[in-house]
């Protein structure tokens, strides 16, 4: 019980509830299986074995949802010969959370080759989730064969352009962006002028106290441009979001968890439910990374997010499948 006290804020110089030294210490632990929960700026850490303790009393909030990403249905190479099984395991993991999330966000690369059968399988598996609503944004693997027509036919109802949209839940404003269309040679992810104009309009007039959650496939910050891990025109989007007191950006694409905090914006990428990819610059290419079979589920994962009214930061918790 004493270590719990040690993990909490010691020095709150900026009066924003975040102890940066503690935060950095926690980020170093993340790779060894410790969860860091930032709930309203108060930093708490739990080892993965104590995940069951994250019950309502620790994370009592008014809205909770889960993010899954990069299911790559149809992939069947050595890095993971059975991506359907690991997606099922991810759904079971979410179902087993102390508080089942109200809905799911899928941040893209639902399918591996944009095939109807692949989308069908994912839909089938997601039917097993206790959370019945799923919101999607496409990854490049979902739109390349037909410019996204099939993706939009299945998941694009009510969306604009290539499939962007926004919705509100319990006072939190969610924005799904598409940054995988019209990729240019040698380029990064791209949002495009039409979508940026839509975003500016969508945010106009909203009170700065509205918590915002943006979700898109490719990271909206520059994780590793050499591997295409960034979005070339996200600066403009972030400029529109700057005035809001709480912005959480959820991405996928890189098949590993990463976090970055910039002012009031918290960036977070999710693990894949299919296969991991190497950390930036640690391999020749960002392709599927093979790990010993018994380790596979420990490098795949899901993310749960909790919103507590009155607190500016959403609590984002990653858990691996094993």
């Amino acid at each position, binding site marked *: 019980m004493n270590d719990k006290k040690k993990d909490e804020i010691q020095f709150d110089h900026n009066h924003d509830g975040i102890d940066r030294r503690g935060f950095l210490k926690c980020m170093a632990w993340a790779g060894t299986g410790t969860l860091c929960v930032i709930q309203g700026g108060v930093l708490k850490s739990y080892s993965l074995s104590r995940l069951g303790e994250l019950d309502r009393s620790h994370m009592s909030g008014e809205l909770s949802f889960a993010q899954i990403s990069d299911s790559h249905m149809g992939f069947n190479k050595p*890095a993971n010969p059975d991506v359907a099984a690991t997606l099922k395991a991810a759904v079971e993991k979410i179902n087993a959370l102390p508080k089942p999330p109200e809905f799911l966000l899928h941040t893209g690369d639902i399918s591996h080759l944009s095939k109807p059968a692949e989308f069908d399988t994912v839909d089938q598996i997601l039917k097993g989730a206790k959370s019945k609503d799923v919101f999607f944004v496409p990854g490049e693997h979902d739109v390349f064969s037909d410019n996204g027509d099939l993706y939009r036919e299945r998941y694009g109802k009510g969306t604009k352009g290539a499939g962007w949209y926004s919705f509100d839940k319990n006072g939190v404003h969610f924005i799904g962006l598409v940054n995988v269309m019209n990729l240019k040679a*040698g380029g990064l992810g791209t949002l495009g002028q039409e979508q940026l104009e839509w975003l500016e309009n969508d945010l106009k007039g909203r009170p700065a106290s509205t918590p915002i959650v943006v979700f898109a496939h490719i990271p909206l910050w520059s994780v590793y441009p050499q591997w*295409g891990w960034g979005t070339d025109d996200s600066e403009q989007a972030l400029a529109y979001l700057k005035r809001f007191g709480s912005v959480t950006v959820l991405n996928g694409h890189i098949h590993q968890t990463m976090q970055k905090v910039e002012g009031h914006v918290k960036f977070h990428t999710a693990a894949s439910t299919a296969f991991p990819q190497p950390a930036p610059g640690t391999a020749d290419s960002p392709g599927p990374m093979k790990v010993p079979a018994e380790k596979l589920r420990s490098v795949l994962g899901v993310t749960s997010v909790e919103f507590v009214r009155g607190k500016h930061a959403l609590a984002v918790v990653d858990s691996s499948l094993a």
Partner: protein
Amino acid sequence: MKRKYGIGFIAVITAILFVALSKEAVHVGATTKESAAQSNSAPAAVKIDNFSFGPAELTVSVGTTVQWTNRDDIPHTVVSTDGVFKSHALDTDESFSYKFDKTGTYPYFCSLHPKMTGKVVVQ
């Protein structure tokens, strides 16, 4: 019989025919030569592996067919930046071929992973 068209006329006609036939003979000869050149140049190969095209820059002669084969464990595409050619998604061990009939420089990339770029120079 009127000899309006005398031997002179016949000679001219013959001469014209002769020239025409010769030209054709030359043309046929040239075509044969061209065909020989085409059938002698085996398809040039580009291997796709590790998120890269190898060789990244390939120089070939006009009329050569270039074949891209994906040896990576993730799908890739071959898309010309100028809209000249575009492959479907190539899974592991799948190939795409394109015959270059005009000289020029043809930059291309993978539309899934746009950092992957290559170039075919046709001379």
